[in-house]
């Protein structure tokens, strides 16, 4: 039971925002010591652990092609594609982005999207723009909600899209870990296939919620108009 201190260390380390590499290394060393390993065995475990987990890092083999197509304007072209969705409601813009994000992540193009690259400069302004067209004015409460859902569409899309792609860290982590520990022999492609039902469910659930988002925003806007009539009256003068 003492070895559970290692888990506690990871939690505390992440909670106080230490560099995750340090957290992981220290937690590993402490847990190994508590588990009765000596320093030589621990160093050896770090070495053999690294050697047997190299497959997790295969994503770097994909970087050269992503690098060159980004150089030639991949993200700009992706913006053009998403831009064609612009004449829609906030919820539908976000469904469109969710679909694009999930499909591109499923073929390994994780870096097409992201909070810094697409959500702030592109997705949120488009969704808010759609709300502005609909209501003529976007109160803060609605804007906050759209912001939350813009970031959420990115996260849901990438989490439940990327596992369909074989080179993603989580799939390779699973194969590396179980192959090393239990002497199984799992193919990354098998795991990727079994990620598809969840990917579809994620799209259906989140897509349904985004469809309902428009109705919620309509309702909130009506409430806003009722509770803040002075502002509009003031403007009318």
């Amino acid at each position: 039971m003492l070895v559970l201190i290692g888990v506690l260390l990871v939690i505390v380390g992440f909670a106080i925002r230490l560099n995750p590499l340090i957290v992981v290394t220290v937690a590993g060393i402490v847990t190994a010591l508590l588990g009765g390993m000596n320093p030589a065995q621990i160093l050896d475990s770090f070495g053999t652990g690294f050697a047997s987990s190299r497959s997790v890092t295969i994503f770097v083999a994909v970087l050269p092609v992503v690098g060159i197509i980004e150089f030639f304007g991949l993200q700009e072209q992706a913006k053009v594609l998403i831009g064609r969705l612009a004449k829609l409601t906030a919820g539908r813009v976000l469904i469109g982005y969710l679909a694009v994000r999930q499909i591109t992540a499923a073929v390994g193009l994780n870096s097409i999207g992201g909070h810094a690259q697409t959500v702030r400069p592109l997705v949120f302004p488009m969704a808010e723009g759609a709300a502005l067209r609909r209501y003529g004015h976007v109160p803060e409460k609605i804007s906050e909600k759209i912001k939350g859902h813009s970031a959420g569409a990115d996260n849901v899309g990438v989490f439940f899209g990327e596992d369909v792609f074989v080179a993603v860290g989580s799939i390779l982590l699973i194969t590396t870990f179980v192959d090393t520990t239990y002497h199984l022999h799992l193919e990354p492609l098998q795991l990727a296939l079994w990620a598809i039902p969840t990917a579809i469910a994620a799209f259906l659930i989140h897509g349904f919620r985004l469809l309902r988002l428009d109705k919620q925003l309509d309702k909130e806007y009506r409430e806003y108009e009722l509770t803040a009539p002075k502002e509009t009256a003031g403007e009318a003068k």
Partner: protein
Amino acid sequence: MINVEAVYWLIGILFVAWASLIAADTNHPRRWGSSAFWGLLGLCFFYSTWVQAGTAPGWILGVAVLVLVVLASTGLLGHGKHRTSTGPERESYAKRFGNKLFIPALTLPLVTVILVLAAPVLNIGGAPLLDPKNTTLVALAIGAVAAVVVALLILKPKNPATPIFESRRILESIGWAALLPQMLTTLGILFTKAGVGTAVGTLASGLLPKGSLIAGVLVYCIGMFLFTVLMGNGFAAFPIMTAAIGWPVLVQTFHGDPAIIFAIGMLAGFCGTLCTPMAANFNLVPSALLEMKNKYGVITAQVGTAIPLLAVNIALMYFLAFH
């Protein structure tokens, strides 16, 4: 036969190439620290071949890994400035090439899947062409190389080394996080050796009615969810819950299909990632980027998807994995 070690050597060569580019970059603010980090990481990929074969001592590699951690976490690793295409240049390229830009990107998964499917019949003189133990990885590496070739043919950059220069830009923006997945896997292996999974398993077996499959599935999926919420990371939760329940109960006792159990178990963990401020880069950084009043607003937007999706994962595992 193309062995998986060849793939790791290709990665080692890439790291060493990036390290040399950084070493040659006199404007780099952390020139030597960064170059040393990526170069040493590349060398570790080569040396690992012999550790894996059992012909070289593992502790030397262990020391090198700890040196990497020290380099990365003491601020010796930094970001260079890169000359890349400017915004207007990219827009004009995007106009010129249009959706052709997606062709190299699609080449990668296409080649990979075709090679994996064709691998059983790809033989030279009776010997398999692709390492049968690691078909997907080898196929993926070939797909990555093919995609670069296709990109060079379609885009015709002035400098044929553009893929290397440009990938260095991406690598440096990833930074030390590039090493994190491997370190988390190593942590999982250490945790397992030290008996963390067994300890959690002992705790869980107190809760678990003996012989109940649905209870096992529930504890595994919900455990993945909760540990991911606590640790902010499905990668760290996976080895613990798998050693505690996934392997001994679901695979060994109930004879479930390991591929299905582990794939869906990890996805149950991802539902936890959607709900936790510990996953700061997904849930707190965007609320800061979007200048939100409520810094937990992203989590609020996601919980309504995460919980039903966790239930779906539990159902999928229960109905698909056990026959």
